[in-house]
């Protein structure tokens, strides 16, 4: 048992490290098979920066499918780059088209129309497929469509309109059939959109292939055009999801032609500047040939061509090749996904340590947290290398979430090293986990995207942005501590006097850091604004948000110093402080759209609102008189308050044994600051 107690923490960290290493290992190309990983590392120009082809595939797949890989119908996982090659070459095209032709995508309930198309009424369905139409029916439809199109609008009957709709369906089908694949990647959840596309709901998966969308693509386009004409405030969830589905189709079609808005896959003839768009290139290019070899299934030819292409780029732009290869490995390792899981384990271990077998579990959590921080820190620095911005942690909203989690974890470890009660680990782990979830939800595109012109300054990104976000993080840590204190006191009988005061001390210390960081960060922001457009303070919503955090933190500290609040009061106010940080982090970004248009930002808005309400509810619970707290007895257990200051009854001199374990267990003799 003693052995287990001693080695358990190390065991935890070794198992976790091995698991993470295995998960993060770069993919190996099979000996017998196409070297897809290698071609995935090839640099291309997209969004104004050089990135690996694999990254383009990954981002696009993410946007379409909310996943970075795809699963075939047997449930096997395939890398994004394989999907890219399948889409570009139209793998499984024949099968997808055949399915699409059999899909009953035409709803005809008029007998007259059936007659015009030479169809016979089906006994139990009004839905017809292209197959049902047959060649004869198709010819009639095309001829009728062309005729009806020329009619003046007033002369068109309802049947004519329906016929035109079918005509458009067939035309759009034919135009896009080439890009059809059977890969189920389009994530569509909205019932109304699914109904429009005549697709069944697929709970738990919600993914559809381009072949399945194809028969009713024309209808989707028409509806999207209609929705786009609506004023912003009239757009509901359906219109937003409609546009979303339509954009997914657009992204897919762009990728299929390897010619996105800013995607340039053809390298310059010499040097590393002047990448070309496929559409502007006449004749053959190497990547195009590689694609053809893939389509043909010529493994040896493919691998040889990939090697040649790699060697050419290697000599032509060695830096970009190394860079892209590193990014491909970084993408594949998904370090921030690993840390999400690790943070959760830390949180879990710390929580369980309060129930029993405390010290081994707590130490396990601590070591695991150190491992997590190592991975997280390495990943943050990898991002800096990839963006070529030393000491710039944050370049977009996504990276603020990643960074706040990191700072929160650092705070957690620092708290833990001083107090050793698992509190710091629980808070750091929880914050790390929650911010990772936020980050994954924000990662809707290239997370290493180039910045806007005004942000293109490493100095201010490294100072102002870093410090203000550290302030956010510290305030969040304080808020979580506050919520922990309130919930532990109200809901459990375990919050005793010593713990109560320890929490108060931690809260106070963290709030001091929060004030420092948020103040300095805010003022540095002002100085940046002064450097950038000559106005130190403009009272604009983002600045005001930062100021609110400073004011809130300063208020808590002053109320504490003035004796207006103590541990509980600080906790309640710190929880309210969380709402203010949320407001300043996300809330003010929504103001520009206006409070009257919920549709467009609906999901984020409601998430924010509910998180805010939960916070206020916890703060409200904190205001319940302490005699109703379940921990009331424990809080009183230390006996009645001594009537005079401690100087009247000096504590006994610390024994040698007590001194030798300085800083370990809780130390109740600490006076409040």
């Amino acid at each position, binding site marked *: 048992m*003693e052995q287990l107690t001693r080695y358990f923490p190390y065991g935890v960290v070794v198992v976790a490290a091995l698991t993470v290493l295995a998960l993060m290992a770069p993919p190996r190309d099979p000996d017998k098979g196409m070297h897809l990983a290698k071609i995935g590392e090839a640099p291309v120009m997209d969004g*104004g*920066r050089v990135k690996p082809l694999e990254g383009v595939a990954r981002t696009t797949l993410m946007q379409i499918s909310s996943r970075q890989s795809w699963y075939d119908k047997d449930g096997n996982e395939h890398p994004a780059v394989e999907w890219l090659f399948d889409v570009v070459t139209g793998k499984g095209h024949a099968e997808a088209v055949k399915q699409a032709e059999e899909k009953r995508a035409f709803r005809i309930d008029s007998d007259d129309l059936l007659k015009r198309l030479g169809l016979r009424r089906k006994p139990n369905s009004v839905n017809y497929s292209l197959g049902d139409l047959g060649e004869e029916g198709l010819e009639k439809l095309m001829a009728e469509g062309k005729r009806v199109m020329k009619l003046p609008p007033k002369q068109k009957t309802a049947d004519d309109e329906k016929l035109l709709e079918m005509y458009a369906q067939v035309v759009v089908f034919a135009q896009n059939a080439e890009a059809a694949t059977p890969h189920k990647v389009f994530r569509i959840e909205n019932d109304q959109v699914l109904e429009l596309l005549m697709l069944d709901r697929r709970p738990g998966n919600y993914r559809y292939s381009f072949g399945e969308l194809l028969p009713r693509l024309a209808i989707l386009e028409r509806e999207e055009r209609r929705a786009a004409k609506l004023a912003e405030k009239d757009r509901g969830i359906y219109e937003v999801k409609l546009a979303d589905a339509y954009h997914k189709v657009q992204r897919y079609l762009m990728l299929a032609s390897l010619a996105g*808005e*800013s*995607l340039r896959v053809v390298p310059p003839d010499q040097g590393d500047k002047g*990448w070309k768009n496929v559409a502007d290139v006449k004749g053959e290019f190497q990547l195009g040939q590689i694609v053809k070899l893939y389509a043909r299934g010529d493994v040896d030819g493919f691998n040889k061509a990939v090697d040649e292409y790699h060697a050419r780029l290697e000599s032509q732009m060695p830096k970009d090749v190394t860079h892209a290869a590193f990014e491909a490995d970084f993408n594949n390792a998904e370090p921030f996904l690993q840390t999400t899981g690790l943070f959760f384990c830390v949180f879990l271990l710390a929580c369980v340590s*309060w129930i029993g077998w405390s*010290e081994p579990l*707590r130490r396990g959590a601590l070591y695991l947290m150190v491992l997590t921080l190592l991975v997280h820190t390495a990943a943050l620095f990898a991002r800096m290398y990839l963006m070529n911005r030393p000491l710039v942690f944050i370049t977009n909203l996504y990276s603020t979430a990643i960074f706040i989690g990191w700072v929160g974890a650092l705070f957690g470890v620092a708290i833990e090293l*001083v107090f*050793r009660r698992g509190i710091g680990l629980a808070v750091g782990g929880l914050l790390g986990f929650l911010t990772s979830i936020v980050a994954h939800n924000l990662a809707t595109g290239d997370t290493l995207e*180039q910045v806007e*012109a005004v942000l*293109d*300054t490493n100095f201010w990104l490294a100072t102002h942005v870093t410090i203000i976000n550290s302030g956010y993080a510290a305030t969040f840590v304080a808020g979580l501590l506050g919520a922990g204190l309130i919930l532990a006191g109200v809901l459990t009988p375990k919050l*005793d006097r010593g713990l109560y005061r320890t929490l*108060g001390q931690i809260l106070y210390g963290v709030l*001091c850091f929060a004030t*420092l960081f948020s*103040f300095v960060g805010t*003022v*540095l922001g002002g100085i940046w604004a*002064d*450097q*950038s457009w*000559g*106005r*130190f*303070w403009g009272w*604009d919503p983002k600045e*005001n*948000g930062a*100021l609110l955090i400073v*004011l809130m933190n300063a*208020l808590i500290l002053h*109320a504490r*110093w*003035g004796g*207006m609040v*103590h*541990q509980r*009061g600080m906790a309640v106010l710190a929880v309210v402080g969380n709402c203010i940080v949320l407001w300043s982090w996300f809330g003010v970004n929504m103001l520009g759209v*206006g*409070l*009257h248009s919920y549709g467009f930002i609906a999901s984020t808005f409601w998430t924010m609102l509910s998180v805010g309400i939960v916070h206020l509810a916890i703060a409200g619970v904190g205001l319940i008189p*302490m005699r109703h707290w379940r921990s009331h007895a*424990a809080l009183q257990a*230390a006996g009645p*308050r*001594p009537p005079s200051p401690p100087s009247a009854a000096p504590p006994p001199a*610390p024994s040698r044994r*007590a001194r030798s374990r*300085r800083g*370990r*267990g809780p*130390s*109740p*003799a*600490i006076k409040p600051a």
Partner: protein
Amino acid sequence: VDKTTAIQTSAPPDPPPAPAPTAAEPVPQPKPVRRRGPVMQAVLALASLKLTVVLMALSIGLVYVGTLAQIDDGIWTVVEKYFRSAFVWVPLQLFFPRDWGVRGVLPYPGGWLIGGVMLVNMTLAYFVRYNHFTWKRTGVYVLHGGLVVMMASEVVTGLCAVEGQMAIKEGESSNVVTQNRYYELAITSPAEDNPTKYLNEVVIPASMLQKPGAVVSDPALPFGVNVEEFMKNSSEPRELREGEKPRATAGIGLIGTVEPRAATSGTAKQQTADMPSAYLIFTKNGEPIGTYLMSLHLDPQTVKVGAKTYKVALRFKQTYQPFSLHLIKFRFDRWEGTQMARNYSSEVNVIDPQRGDRNNVIIRMNDPLRHGGETFYQADFDHATEQATYLQVVRNPGWLLPYIACVLVALGMIIHFGMHLSTFLARRRAV
């Protein structure tokens, strides 16, 4: 394994905890023995930490409503109404979706009032509560000194800072600064010897033209101005509809008109300047010359008085620098293969006979030019041609104050919290 290092969920038995008053059971504070006069009591109240906390809570509320208000109003309207005022009526509608049509207002102290009392509170605290200097309080002194500097800088900026814009085309020079928050009616008279040369300029600030019925007359003006209507913001001019009676009796207003518009809101995606228009009656010796439509949308119009022809325009307020800038080249760099802006920059020569010329100065994002007390920032450019630059021109005598304040406050906090932390850690070690 030392069992005592295990986590204890109950209070440890050794030394009794120091008394900490909890919120649940506030300790009755012993009343001060010494009696104080009402003046001293008032001073103490003004210097109290309680007041500090109340003021902070009030400012949180003010900043919050001042942010919400920017959904409906222009940022400058909000700044003047909420932050640079003593008192404000906050419409309750701010807190609800606008289509609910919630009515009612809430009286609230404005920025000057809260800030002013805060300043008094902080200053008095130095004399009343912190009048015995101790080294322990160094951080507090430095920190709050920094805050005073910071507040002073906002006052200096609020009262003295002047912002304007300068537009220069490539290959041309300019010394004209326009201020697009202020407007003026400019009347230019022809030179005595050459009627085609316009030299003397007389301007009436638009603030004098706001009220219908206002009369402006001055010996410097060649004619009087009576206000019929002033629109703070207005639509692009349109031609009069058939049968529509012109409100003007002369000038372009005979064939066209404009519609009033709401002022631009602070959170609007496109921050555009308001474009005012006005119907003005020009008079000579009390006799009307005609009613004119004047608008920022319109070019200068000619007004004939006697033998002289004047050019009159409603325009952004203009000032003239004693030096000029010559734009050599404007550059708009994009990230490769995209339309995403990477940088904007203007290469200029400063032509200044007094202070001396400066050649080939680059003004770009985050890198302004400071010259002669003015600072020039890269603000915008002519999007159609990309051959003209718009510079933001700011004169702010207090621009250095925030830098000083930031250093002071940061230093103060580091000293204060650092002292706290080291004492705390030392005490923990001593246990």
